[in-house]
């Protein structure tokens, strides 16, 4: 896409003028937003169109209103932010967009030149780089959890010190127990106090309950959606599965996301029966990898039937005691704790969806996911499903061995 390259070159040339970059990025997002609003991609379902718009808008909103926004990571409990009407910006999404604008290399090099480890996950490095270059306006608050991803606590601590912005770290224990729930619940209460103080507003408990209610309703829809995946096919691009992370994590509990899943359910009900080969992805999808784009985007032959990260929690949250309920949800996430938990969930999903193959794209720097690769491979072998893992990077395009990956991907697809 030459327009994007052109735009990325302008940004790169102005890296020493943070104000200007900030405007350029906001402009880019605004353009993208109007573009997707006007030109609907006819190949995809309605829900795709709706979600794309929603995601771009949410990033745009939080960047434009730093005084009412908080930086979070994808596993943060954003129900509280929704109830308090605070706009979350999740750093993984921001980095993905910067990669979409083709400027991730510059941002990553900047972070590394400051001393940040070059083996750190590029979602984090990109964001840190943007922060170092001051192209991000500082938010009012930062929120992260210790669970699932090692990078979160140190990255957020680093950012909050650099920006002098208050941070709340929620420490999520590895194991579930009565004490663990009490520990997290107490932290959530403390965090809300901090939020109230910083944003000068009070949390309305009924509003929080309402958010949790919507979240529970949404999860019912997600479970229903799962039941259709075995027999129906939606033609989608890889980005859809990644946009879904906005829906399954950060913004779940909002009315807009409830509406999205209603639309999605409609779409899948009306979709044609499954044909071609279906691939289930683990963790992340390399949306910027050309080889994958060629094979999977809107493809009838090889289609994506989901990624386990979008189904890492499928249960209800206790509406009566939302603090307790959310604490339990954080601990019981299938990506938290022993790998066994995740393996069990993957097994459930595979039995339900019956995909023809599983692909894990081992995102460089993601210790939690690559560390479990061989365990999942074992599971796939036991279940008799072809499994492929490929190394690469979902953000930093320089780390992808295109030629090598293509051969391996093609050989795998031929195998199916």
């Amino acid at each position, binding site marked *: 896409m030459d327009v994007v390259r052109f735009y990325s070159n302008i940004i790169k040339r102005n890296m020493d003028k943070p104000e200007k970059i900030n405007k350029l990025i906001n402009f880019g997002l605004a353009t993208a937003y109007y573009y997707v609003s006007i030109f609907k991609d006819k190949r995809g379902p309605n829900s795709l169109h709706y979600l794309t718009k929603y995601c771009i808008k949410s990033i745009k909103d939080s960047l434009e209103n730093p005084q009412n926004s908080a930086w979070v990571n994808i596993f943060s409990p954003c129900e509280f932010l929704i109830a308090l009407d605070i706009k979350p910006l999740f750093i993984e999404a921001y980095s993905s967009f910067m990669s979409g604008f083709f400027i991730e290399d510059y941002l990553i*090099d900047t972070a*590394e*030149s*400051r*001393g*940040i*480890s070059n*083996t*750190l*996950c590029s979602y984090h490095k990109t964001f840190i780089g943007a922060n170092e270059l001051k192209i991000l306006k500082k938010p009012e608050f930062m929120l992260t959890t*210790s669970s699932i*991803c*090692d*990078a979160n*606590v*140190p*990255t957020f*601590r*680093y950012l909050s*010190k650099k920006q002098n912005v208050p941070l709340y*770290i929620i*420490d999520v*224990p*590895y*194991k579930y*127990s009565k*004490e*663990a729930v*009490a*520990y997290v619940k*107490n*932290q959530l209460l403390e965090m809300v106090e901090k939020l109230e103080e910083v944003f000068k507003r009070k949390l309305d408990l009924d509003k929080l309950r309402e958010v949790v209610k919507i979240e529970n309703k949404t999860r019912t829809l997600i479970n229903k959606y799962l039941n259709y995946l075995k027999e129906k096919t939606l033609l989608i691009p890889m980005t859809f599965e990644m946009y879904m992370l906005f829906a399954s994590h950060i913004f779940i509990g909002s009315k807009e996301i409830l509406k999205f899943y209603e639309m999605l359910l409609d779409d899948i009900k009306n979709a044609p029966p499954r044909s071609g080969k279906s691939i289930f992805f683990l963790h992340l999808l390399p949306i910027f990898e050309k080889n994958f784009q060629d094979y999977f985007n809107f493809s009838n032959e090889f289609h994506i039937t989901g990624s386990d990260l979008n189904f890492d929690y499928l249960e209800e949250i206790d509406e009566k005691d939302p603090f307790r309920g959310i604490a339990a949800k954080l601990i019981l996430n299938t990506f938290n704790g*022993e*790998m*066994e938990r995740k393996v069990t969930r993957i097994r459930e999903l595979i039995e339900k969806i019956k995909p023809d193959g599983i692909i894990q794209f*081992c995102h*460089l*720097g993601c*210790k*939690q996911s*690559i*560390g*479990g*690769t*061989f*365990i999942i491979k074992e599971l796939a072998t036991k279940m008799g499903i072809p499994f492929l893992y490929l*190394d690469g990077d979902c953000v930093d395009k*320089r780390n992808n*061995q295109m*030629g090598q990956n293509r051969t391996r991907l093609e050989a795998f697809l031929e195998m199916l």
Partner: protein
Amino acid sequence: MVGYVCKYTPVEIIEAFGEKPVRIESGCKSYERAEALLHTNTCSFVKGVLENIIENNIEEVILTSCCDSIKRLYDVLKDRVKFIYILDLPRKKDTFAVDVFYKEIIKFIDAYKAFKKKGFTVENFLKILEDKSSFKKTQKSSESIAILGARLKDDVVEKIKNSCSVNIINFTCTGEDRIFNIESEDNLLKGYAASLLNLTPCMRMAEDRSKFFYKDFKGIIYNTIKFCDYYSYEYAEMKSQLNIPFLKIETDYTDSNSGQILTRIDAFFEATDIKKMEQKKAKKGYFAGIDSGSTSTNVVIIDENKNIISYSIIPTGPKALESAFKAFEIALNNAGIKEKDITSIVATGYGRVSIPFAEKMVTEITCHGKGAFFIDNRVRTVIDIGGQDSKVIRLDESGNVIDFVMNDKCSAGTGRFLEVMSRTLGISIHEMAKVHAEVKENITITSMCTVFAESEVISLIAQNKDQKDIIHALNKSVASKAVSLVDRIGRKGKYMMTGGVAKNQGVVTAIESKLGEKLVIPAEPQIIGALGAALIAFEGTNG
């Protein structure tokens, strides 16, 4: 024997069971078995632990939920050893956190009891705790060097201790005295859990560590581990805020790079005056410096007026000592003098430790700084790109080394990189060095890694790209590595480039254009280290 890795492990409880806790060190030669079970890109420490557990047949292991890598290690080990337990270690230390950890310790005790079919007595446990507490030592921090960062192997810590006279405090996962202040007996285990959580926090904990470490140590050695990301943040932060001597090292738990690490540590001590060399009066006669590098061995002889009277450069053979003898002999012959005419010899370079006839050993960092400043005292930054490694050295107005960085292990951006590429292109390294200026197409090599860059070059050849343009791209790639090293300590001219690669005009031009400034290139860039050594031999001091 119970293997463990983390300082938060309740080792006293294991001891109270009458068992022997052993901290797994994880040094190993290869990761062959570990990489069959864990992805290659997992942290080298964890792979090493796994390798050790398999090799030494360790049957009982206790881990903590320290990091993603350790958690996956647990998953992999789960059905492979007789007893394994992963302790859920909170990151905070409020009363709720203590509750979590206390319950966890109880569960662990139950699990271990069930496995061993024996228990422990409280008296026993108390005695062990008391014994440890009595070893309480206090040391004034302003007189100490602190080791911070990721865990550091015991032998490296030992070597650091031996190379200087000041007190060394190890704050990494492998250090720290265990001191317990446990109050009432009925709450013994809870108190124990709380005091474990109260150890000096590691980077994994939620607490801000700056209050512990921004006090005035005499210097800080900061360790990071390849593929472990926790500590680079703190390093980045400290680097820009501390104004005491500060050295970063990166270790990887294989044995292969400890030589390089020790060079850095020695250079650090030399630069900060922590390792004092006795001052001697300059004597009459001739003085020699021998630089025994991994690719070439160079010797410089100066007279009592600091005139260079001869030098030699020969490739380092398989035996460093033989090459040193040979190079020394050639230099003596060139100068027309005999060995007995030499008053003093200083050795530097990787091979410096194996030159018995040298009076003194000084690291190549100090020597390079010395030599460069001697040639041109306007120089503030020395960029030395050698065969196997590259370094950037910062000098102050008096020519003292005040900071330096070295490339980490891999050969990207070194002479070796250019050598590999010249072979790929099918031309000699000398021919390659001649190519510069005439560029038709501005190609960029994106891969940082030599191996990947090579496949990029192969595909450029396949696309029929002009050889000169490919060479230009390679020069740019070396230049950008060098400049990023410069950026790690901040830009400051004048710059001098030394080492064999300085003879490659293409690389020189590429670095100049990135820095926006001309480089000083000495007439013979390969002998600067040896020259510095000779000067130190002359002065009898490295200061």
